């Protein structure tokens, strides 16, 4: 069960209409290492992970949906005042033809999201290492996105998200150690 909170996790501001940047941000909306992938990856892995790691997967998976909403808000705010000509000029002409200003789970190249982006091997360590790698890849993507814009308001939101990836990776590393220690303990019984 989930409930919705009518607020963003962190305020999202943009200082200008910039559909070009919105196009790049779609990488974190419907891309392989994006927030949708992250949320679905962790929540789906919960059912086969040892009990000691279910809490962290549940909570980080839930937080990822809050991040997805922040990315959606950025894209919404960057495109809402753009005219058709601007969409065409920045390479979003085909997006506009199919979706107008609607969001869609696609990456920055317009490739639709696929479940093939996320893994669940059933082996707890393999899954957690997958999650650590995913967080590191998302962190790197946020850095490239920060480098691509001079909008300090947008950068502020992106920096928050970049930092969250670091914390998540750290928590997953700790979960790896907890599961390893648990296995060692069971060997001696």
């Amino acid at each position, binding site marked *: 069960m989930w*409930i*919705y*909170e*009518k*607020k*963003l*996790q*962190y*305020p*999202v501001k943009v200082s200008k209409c910039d559909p070009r940047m919105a196009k790049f941000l779609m990488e974190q909306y419907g891309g392989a290492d994006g927030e949708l992938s992250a949320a679905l990856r962790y929540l789906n892995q919960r059912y086969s992970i040892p009990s000691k790691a279910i*809490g*962290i997967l549940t*909570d*980080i998976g839930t*937080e990822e949906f809050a991040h997805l*909403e922040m990315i*959606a*808000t950025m894209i*919404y*705010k960057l495109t809402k005042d753009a005219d058709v000509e601007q969409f065409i000029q920045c390479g979003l002409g085909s997006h506009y033809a199919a979706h107008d200003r609607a969001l869609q789970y696609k990456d920055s190249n317009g490739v639709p999201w696929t479940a093939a982006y996320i893994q669940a091997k059933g082996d707890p360590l393999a899954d957690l290492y997958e999650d650590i790698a995913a967080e590191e890849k998302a962190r790197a993507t946020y850095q490239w996105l920060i480098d691509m814009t001079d909008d300090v308001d947008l950068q502020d939101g992106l920096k928050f998200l970049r930092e969250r990836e670091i*914390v*998540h990776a750290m*928590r997953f590393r*700790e*979960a790896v150690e*907890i599961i390893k220690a648990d296995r060692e303990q069971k060997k001696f019984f």
Partner: protein
Amino acid sequence: MDQANAENAREERAAGDDAYRRELLEIQKIDFALVELNLYLDTHPGDMQALQQFNQLAQRRKQMAHEFELKYGPMTNFGNSFSRFPWQWIETPWPWQV
């Protein structure tokens, strides 16, 4: 008021005023601390100090949310917040409109 001005005024209302954003930010701040403590406790369940901090902030958060909702309406759905008449949940601003 011409049509463009009326449209702007509508958008302004939908986005919430400065006081709304300021008070919302206070909740976002305390919620950030709670998320951080929550994730930390998931992998450090035996840290008593962190747990005390979590429980204290959770208590304060409840109070802050109550005061916020009295002014601005429910923050959560499905019976986790109260509503005045008429049903306030559907009122703007939604998070991306703020």
